[in-house]
C-alpha cells in the first residue's frame, strides 16, 4: 500500500513539533527530575516535551489520511532580506552606532519590496535616520550611541 503525504502543511508542522519536542526532551534530561512532591527543573519540561512530540506525531499521521493545500508562494527573498537586515541592525547598533545601523537596516530591507528604487530608498534611509536620532537620542535620551566604538567614539 502506497502511503503519501496528503496534507503537507500538517505534515511539516508535525515534523517541526516532533523535532522541537525532542530537542527540549533531550536537554531537559541533564536537569534534576525530582519527584511529584518536589518537582525538579526537568519535571514539567519533560512532560510538555513528550506531549509536544505526541501532538506532532498525531499531525504527521493525520496528514497521511486527510487532504490539505500545499505550501505555496514562500517569500524566500523577502524573508532572507528581513532576517539579514535585522541581524545587521543588531550588530551595528551597538558597535557602529545608530546612524550606520539605521542606514543599513533601511537599505537592506527596502530591497525586499518589488517596488524597490534606490533613490527613494536613499531618501527614506536618510530621513528615518535623522528622525530617529532626533526622537530617540535627543528627545527620549536612549542610551544608544549615535556614532559607535567602531568609528572611534
Amino acid at each position, binding site marked *: 500500500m502506497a502511503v503519501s503525504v496528503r496534507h503537507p*502543511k*500538517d505534515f511539516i*508542522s508535525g515534523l*517541526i*513539533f516532533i523535532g*522541537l*519536542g525532542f530537542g527540549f526532551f533531550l*536537554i*531537559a534530561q541533564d*536537569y*534534576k527530575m525530582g*519527584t*511529584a*512532591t*518536589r*518537582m525538579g*527543573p526537568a519535571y*514539567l*519540561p519533560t512532560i*510538555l516535551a513528550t*506531549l*509536544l512530540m505526541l*501532538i*506532532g506525531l498525531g*499531525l504527521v499521521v*493525520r496528514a497521511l489520511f486527510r487532504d490539505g493545500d500545499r*505550501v505555496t*508562494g*514562500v*517569500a524566500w527573498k*523577502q524573508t532572507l532580506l*528581513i*532576517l539579514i*537586515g*535585522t*541581524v545587521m*541592525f*543588531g*550588530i551595528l*547598533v551597538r558597535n557602529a552606532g*545608530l546612524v550606520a*545601523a539605521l542606514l543599513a*537596516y*533601511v537599505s537592506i*530591507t*527596502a530591497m*525586499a*519590496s*518589488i*517596488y*524597490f528604487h534606490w533613490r527613494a*530608498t536613499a531618501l*527614506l*534611509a536618510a530621513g*528615518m535616520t535623522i528622525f*530617529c536620532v532626533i526622537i*530617540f537620542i535627543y528627545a*527620549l535620551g*536612549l542610551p*544608544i550611541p549615535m556614532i559607535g566604538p567602531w568609528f572611534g567614539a
Partner: protein
Amino acid sequence: MELLANLAIGIDAAVTFQNLFYCLGGVLLGTLIGVLPGLGPVATIAMLLPATFALPPLSALIMLAGIYYGAQYGGSTTAILINLPGESSSVVTALDGYQMARQGRAGAALSTAALGSFFAGTVATLLLAVFAPPLAEMALKFGPAEYFSLMVLGLVASVALANGSLLKAIGMIVLGLLLGLVGSDVNSGTPRFTFDMPDLADGINFVALAMGMFGLGEIIKNLEDEKNRDVMVKKVTGLWLTWDDFKLIWKPVLRGTGLGSILGILPGGGAILSSFAAYSLEKKLSKTPERFGKGAIEGVAAPESANNAGAQTSFIPMLTLGIPSNPVMALMAGAMIIQGIQPGPLVMTEQPTLFWGIIVSMWIGNFFLIILNLPLIGLWVRLLTVPYHLMFPAILVFCGIGVYSVNNTNFDVFMMAGFGVAGYIFSKLECEPAPLLLGFILGPMMEENLRRAMTLSRGDAMVFIERPISATMLLLAALAMIVVLSPAVRKKREEAFQEE
C-alpha cells in the same frame, strides 16, 4: 455606594494633566499605527511598549490601554476604507463596511463603527467596575490548585475559540509553555535551555517574541503579494447618520454590546469571537439577511460594538485573576510586571488608585477616540495612501530600536529576527501564533502553581479534583474540549470561521 467611591478614586487618579496627556497620546499613537495596513493591536502595543518604560506605572498602563483601543479603531478604519482588516476581529467589519464605502457611504460606516464602539466601551467599562471587585475577592481565596486549573481552563478555552486546526493550536500552546520555561528555574536556580548564554538566564524577552512573531512575521507575509494591495481611497464624506440609520443600528449595537461583554470575559480570542458571533446573530435575526455582505449598516454596527465590548471586558480576568486571556492582555500583563506590579487579585486592594485609575481612563480613552477620530479621519485616510514599500522599513526601524532599548542588548534584536522568521513559517503552515504567546506568558505561572499545589498535597494529583472550585474548572475545560471535538459542533465552528 462603594462603586461611586471607587470610581471617584479612579477619576482623581486618571484626570490629571499628565495622565490625560498620556491617554490622549496613547489613543493617537495607537490609531496612527493601527491605521497602517497589516499592523494589529498586538504588534502596535509590542512596538510602543518600550516607549512607556520610563513613565510611572499608572501613566504607562493608561497609555498602553489607549494604544489598544486606538489600534483597534484604526484596524476598523482600514477594514472599511480599503478592505484590509488590521486584525482578525475587524475581518467581519470589512464584509459590509467596505461595501458601504464602495457605495459612497464610507462616512456613515465609520461613524457607525465609532458610535457603536463608544457605546459598547461605556457599558463594558461599567461592567468591569461592577464585577471586578467580587471576582478579585473570590480570587483571593484561590490556592495554587485553583490557579493551575483556571489556567488550564483558559488555555483550553483559547484553543476552542481560536480558528483553524485544534491539534495545531494545542501544539502551539505547548511550544509556548516550553519557551516560557527557558531561563533560570525559580526553585533550584538551574539555568534551563539557555545553551550557557547569559542573555537567556532571565528567559526569552517577550517583547522580542511578540514583535518578531506579530511584527516581522506579518511584514514578511504582507510583502508576499504586494501587487494585490490596491490602495484606492476615495474622499470620505457624509459622516452624519440619518434618522433611518439610527433606527437600523440601535438594536444591533445593544445586542453586539451584550454579546461582546459576555464573550470577552472568556479566555481566548475575546474580541475576535464576539465580532464573528455578533455578525452571525444579526444576519439570523434580520428580516432581510440578503443585504448582509452588500453594505448592510447593521453588519458594521453589531461586530464593531461587540469587539470593543469584548476588548474592554477581557481586562477583567487579567486585572482580577492575573491571568491574561489573549495576546494583548499578555502584553499588558508583561508591561505590569516590567513596572514592578504583579497582576492579580491584590492589585485592587493594594493599589486602588492604579486599578480604578485604569478603569476610569478606559472610558476617557473611548471618549477621546470618538471626539478625535471623526474630525481627524481625513488625516488617517491620507496615511493610508503612503505606499507600503516606504512604510515597512520605517516600521522595522521602530521595532528594532524598540526591542533593543528594552534591555539595551543586541541579543534581543537577534531573537526578534529569529522569531520573525519562525512566525512567518508558522503562518505559512497555518499555525496561529496567538496561542503560543499565551502559553509563553502562562508557562512560568503554571509551573509555579503546579509545584506548590503538589508540594502541599504531598505529591497527590487528586488535589486538583478534590477541591470543588478546581474540579469545576477542570470539568468545564473537559466539557469545552468534548463540545469542540463533537462532530456537529465542529462543522458549525468551521462554518462560523469561514464567514470571511
